[in-house]
């Protein structure tokens, strides 16, 4: 059986009284010809890369190779204790931007699910793991849950900004992170599903409009927002709030909205923020003419 709907996955987990990650690991071990231990060990290495990128970006001001962005993760980290949103949300957001800063500087990251949205899952997951005193292995289990959500979105909608806009990249990353965080916090598989729906609904229709075509403006800040929204989506679900529209229908709607977006708003740098006077000016400065 392949994982092609959230309902199927949640049902399977409920029926066997197991976590989503446990079902996913068992099935992927069969599909990929690896043992569950081997899968976990590989994912632990990926998690290590995520942590290293987040650490680099919150403790140093990292600048992009184009020079148009830098230091966002570092700055918000400095404000994390005194900020209005509370330290968990701010640390998650700071780490997400930190990883994005590392990405824009040609540093090492894990595409999750894409390079453009690579900060959201590490930002949310590392911070919640720290807050709840969980182990790396538990965090990695949650990554399998995130990956399953990503696969279901890829099968029923899309994960590519060029196809579905930013909702498909940062929106999906936020939904994946939300499900991971619900599981890590001890929520039920069904609550993880509702969290996916909340995260996607929050950004439905969000366009992909990178200034000068670079993975920087507005991508880095959208990563910061995506991590914060993932935590809110998880908290809503953990509080017992349910999505009126079933999560699988939300995913399909996101894909359909993506198809309706004009070409200018799908990673072509021809619309949205990329087409503002300042956006065009930056384009000229970086690439000339």
């Amino acid at each position, binding site marked *: 059986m*392949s994982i092609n709907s959230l309902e199927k996955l949640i049902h399977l987990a409920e029926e066997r009284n197991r976590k989503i990650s446990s079902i*996913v690991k068992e099935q*992927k071990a069969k599909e*990929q010809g690896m043992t569950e231990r081997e*899968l976990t060990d*590989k*994912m632990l*290495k*990926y998690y290590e*890369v995520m942590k290293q990128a987040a650490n680099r970006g919150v403790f140093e001001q990292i600048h*992009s*190779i*184009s020079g148009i962005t830098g230091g966002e993760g570092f700055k918000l980290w400095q404000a994390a204790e005194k900020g209005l949103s509370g330290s968990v949300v701010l640390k998650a957001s700071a780490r997400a931007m930190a990883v994005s800063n*590392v*990405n*824009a*500087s*040609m*540093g*090492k*990251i*894990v*595409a*999750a*699910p*894409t*390079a*453009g949205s*690579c900060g959201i*899952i590490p930002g949310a997951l590392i911070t919640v793991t720290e807050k709840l005193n969980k182990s790396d292995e538990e965090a990695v289990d949650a*990554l*399998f849950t*995130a*990956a399953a959500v*990503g*696969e279901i979105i*890829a*099968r029923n909608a899309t*994960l*590519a900004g*060029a196809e579905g806009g930013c909702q498909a990249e940062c929106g999906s990353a936020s939904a994946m992170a939300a499900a991971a965080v619900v599981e890590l916090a001890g929520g039920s598989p069904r609550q993880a599903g509702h969290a996916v729906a909340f995260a996607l609904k929050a950004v439905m229709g969000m366009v992909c409009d990178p200034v*000068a*075509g*670079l*993975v*920087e403006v507005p991508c880095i800040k959208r990563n910061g927002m995506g991590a914060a929204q993932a935590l809110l989506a998880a908290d809503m679900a953990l509080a017992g709030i349910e999505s009126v529209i079933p999560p699988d229908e939300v995913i399909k709607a996101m894909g359909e909205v993506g198809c309706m977006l004009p070409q200018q708003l799908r990673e072509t*740098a021809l619309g949205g923020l990329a087409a503002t006077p300042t956006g065009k000016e930056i384009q000229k400065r*970086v*690439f000339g003419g």
Partner: protein
Amino acid sequence: MNIFDIIGPVMIGPSSSHTAGAVRLGNLARHILGEEPKKARIILYNSFASTGKGHGTDRALVAGILGFLPDDERIRTSFEEAKKAGLEYELVDGGSKEKLHPNTAEFFLEGPENTTRVVGASVGGGRVMVSSIDGFKTEFSGEYHTVITIHKDIPGIISSVTSCLSKKNINIAQMRVFRESRGEKALMIIEADEILPEGIKEELERINGIFRAMNISPVY
């Protein structure tokens, strides 16, 4: 779906198509040359030419030619690494060509003994496709262990190659042959499940009628 395609790959940013894919293309071109490149002329087309600089596509292509993979932290400083390795490189803006894929690079590589011309594209999500080798139309992704031969289009060559592989217990996943015209030169691509043994290139080149063989490791 491989779970590490959803969470993963580990890569140097900022872009899977313009950075990771570019490294893979350079790496494949190096393996097609089959020896340490000394000179490289790389022509960037379309989106690679227009937005490549901001994505580090130039450094990524050179890094690939040096043999790096997409997660190598030396990609950022590949121009300096090229100097150390004695690789002379030239990056050329090829402008826009409608017939080519949006993210296309053309490589002219020169080693101590061989030269080669490779054209390839980064086709999305970091995946790549090599579309031409030394003027032959091809199609391979570098996802498998790959053997390529350039040989005379005469009976028996293909079976000599496959029997050489089967003796080594190598299972062929996919295989394709492209030829210039009947009786002239042909190019064969074999994608295998197993790691190809060292020395396979030399062994195949000893077969009568084979001009050149290449042994290409996966770049994923």
